[in-house]
């Protein structure tokens, strides 16, 4: 009896361990999440390809800036066209007012003409917190070997003004371009901007 209790306690303590945040230059933490149709998607499925992770929340004005200007969709189209896997992840807590059900997420992505490989739901926030995703949009790039090569903002213009996307330096575009050309990523960490992820 005593031993059983100890085992239970130990298991609980172990389960409570924190996971280190994803770090540029280090292997990207693996995960399995369900997509909007309920199908589990595993990061390791995309080994051998570049993977872009985009943290998304349709109600966020910063996300709206990049979707209403079609900036995000353009990026998605360009790189999924070059065999890059693009995963949009929503880590919003189901208790938050701006939570979207899988069906709502699916409808929104369709309405926006998104060109993502998959739209994933991370309702527990576990994957978001493992990656240290703080805002929407928070962007990550993983190389074919599974190493994180970029983490940060989508561009250098912290604003909600649609017209800014034209003049901004798009970090993801630059980093993906460099990576696909076989060059090292010149700017691999930037300060992300946007709305707090509603964990």
């Amino acid at each position: 009896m005593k031993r059983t209790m100890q085992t239970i306690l130990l298991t609980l303590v172990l389960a409570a361990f924190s996971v280190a945040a994803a770090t540029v230059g280090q292997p990207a933490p693996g995960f399995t999440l369900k997509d909007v149709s309920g199908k589990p998607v595993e990061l390791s499925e995309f080994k051998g390809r570049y993977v872009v992770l985009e943290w998304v929340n349709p109600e966020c004005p910063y996300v709206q800036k990049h979707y209403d200007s079609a900036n995000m969709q353009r990026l998605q189209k360009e790189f999924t066209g070059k065999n890059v896997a693009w995963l949009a992840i929503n880590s919003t807590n189901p208790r938050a007012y701006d939570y979207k059900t899988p069906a709502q997420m699916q409808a929104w992505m369709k309405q926006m003409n998104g060109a993502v490989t998959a739209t994933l739901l991370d309702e527990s926030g576990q994957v978001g917190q493992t990656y240290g995703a703080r805002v929407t949009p928070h962007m990550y790039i993983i190389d074919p070997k599974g190493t994180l090569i970029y983490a940060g903002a989508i561009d250098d213009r912290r604003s909600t003004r649609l017209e800014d996307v034209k003049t901004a330096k798009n970090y993801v575009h630059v980093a993906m371009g460099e990576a696909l050309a076989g060059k090292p990523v010149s700017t691999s960490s930037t300060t992300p901007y946007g709305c707090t992820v509603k964990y």
Partner: protein
Amino acid sequence: MRAQLSLILLAFSAAVCAEPVRTPHVEAELLAPRTAIEPGKPLVVALRLKIAPNWHTYWRNPGDSGEPTRITWKLPPGYSAGAIQWPVPERLPAGPLTNFGYKNEVLLLTDVAVPQGASGPVTLAARADWLVCNPERCIPEGADLAITFSGNANGRTAWAEAIERAQALLPRKAAEVGPWRFDARGAAGAVVLDIVPPAGIRLASPVYFPYEEGRIDNSAAQPVERAGDAYRLTIPASRQPVGAFTRVAGLLAVAQPLDAQGRRAVEFSVPVTGLVGPAAAAPPAPESAPLGLAMALAFAFLGGLILNLMPCVLPVLSIKVLGFVSNANQGAAQRRLQGALFAAGVVGSFLLLAAVLIALKAGGTALGWGYQLQSPLFVSVLALFFFALALNLSGVFEFGNVLPASLSGARVSSPRIDALLSGALAVFVASPCTAPFMGAALGFAFSQSVPVTMLIFTALGLGMAAPYALLAWNPRWLGSAPAPGPWMTRLKQFLAFPLYATVIWLAWVLGTQSGLDAVIALLAALLALAVTAWLAGLATRRKLAVRAIATAFALAAAALAVHAARAPAPGTPAISSAESAAAAWQPYTRHRLAELTAAGTPVFVDFTAAWCVTCQVNKQLVLTRPDVERAFTDRGVARLRADWTRRDDEITRALAELGRNGVPVYALYLPGRSVRLLPEILTRETVLAALAEIGHPKSIANLKRKEAP
């Protein structure tokens, strides 16, 4: 366009005019202290944002998300505006993230240079854009604002005082204020900032607000150590840094005013010497997935249940249960009512304790479970109380002889109050004990909102009251109890001995807190109490002289107890136990822990207190076992002891970071791994199994040596 605007505005006002603009969550306007400009003299203009309750706007560095408020000025030729002078922000937590910003109302001041030849009415216009957020949503808002100065009378406006006050509170550069000294150096996962403020200035809860983004972990606590006039702030680095952490530049904000003006921050900038090490060896991150509410409630209930078996509670409750045997003829309804009242007493006392803890915490005092025992006075009173109880069990006196007739009469005539009070008493005597499961539940309780904290304490109380209340409901569950008889008196007398032992232990606790003199004073108080009790046992009501002497001894006991508690606390424990003197254990400091983990040394931290029975049992039965000690030595584990016997904010904070609120806590830091907590009740096997993960560096070394020719 601009001229038109000024004309329109002029039409509305004779002096200074600014219409507030209302957006859905903010009321914005431009304000000035004076009604007219003075040629060649700079003018301060305030952007006032009146923010809806629960919403906030952002500081120049917004923290983990958000966007600073921006002002784009549209000024007449010759005029120019400076940058926003930001007031000291607040830390605004949002789940695991933190922002820096303002709530309610903020005045953002800007200096506007007025040209020499300026004259006549003038309008200063600006576009202000801000992001306003509540914990749920963020709205970008903005307004076109203008303020017109009509020229003639150079009077003060209604806002002059508020603006001057805001100016006076703006943080100043440390170098302009006095001889502040800042030194920063890189450590493992953090920057250590040493601060020496000018003489006479004390820093209350200092916090660093960085100007640069992406360098620090915005949500992490910044632990502070104080040594004389110097302070050491450990600033945890971001786990996803953006660029190198080479400079500490920003505000040092404190909770108490630094000067007569009421300023609460200084601005400073200092380079970081050395490198910030990888965050892998950083001070432990708080557990990311603590208990859920349901689990915490279950743990609290279980912990309360187990409290009954703790050595401080068991004798007291045994006596209560004996009551069922002796009062076998008592009505069932009466007995059940008493059981329920006892439970109410237990739960009520726990809630009272929780309320006190919450109130003290809100006042900024760092406390945790068992905090009462950090007070020498409480320890002395508890010792006297246990001693009196033990003397009573030994048969030296009966309570009825001591208490004034009216009071003891009330006690007998109202068994309900008696039951309620014994519930409170059980909690009182339980305070030195932490049962298994309680630690995790209490740690969770204090990281939650007040109602949740109260709920968990209720579960704890229900758990503790359950066995007695159930037995009161049906004593047959006790099993076949023997018939009442002389054995009951003997058992009662025997139960006095664990209580005497408890008194010895409390004397030892007082010794570690306040030294030998305090212990002697306590022993003298116990002697006086014994004499009082003996006299009370003899006394018949009529012998006034005996009662007078008894009272005198009682007063002496009280005075001595207070004296014992007042004895000055020695710098280091006056009576140190043999183990803590042993070189194997080093005293815990955050700094030492960071050093050891940075060097890749496995570290075991024993969070303990002399008054914590569970801790002492673990220490004697497990941690000091020769085979356990050998395992520590063989595997090169550094052992740190965090002694919480007296109040220690640093240890309280370290406990909070581990998600705990009381001792014991056993934390094992292995290089490259997150911190691991061992159960509150240690066994030799758990410790050895945990240590086995490290491997055997020493024996490997020995092996190699043997292989060498």
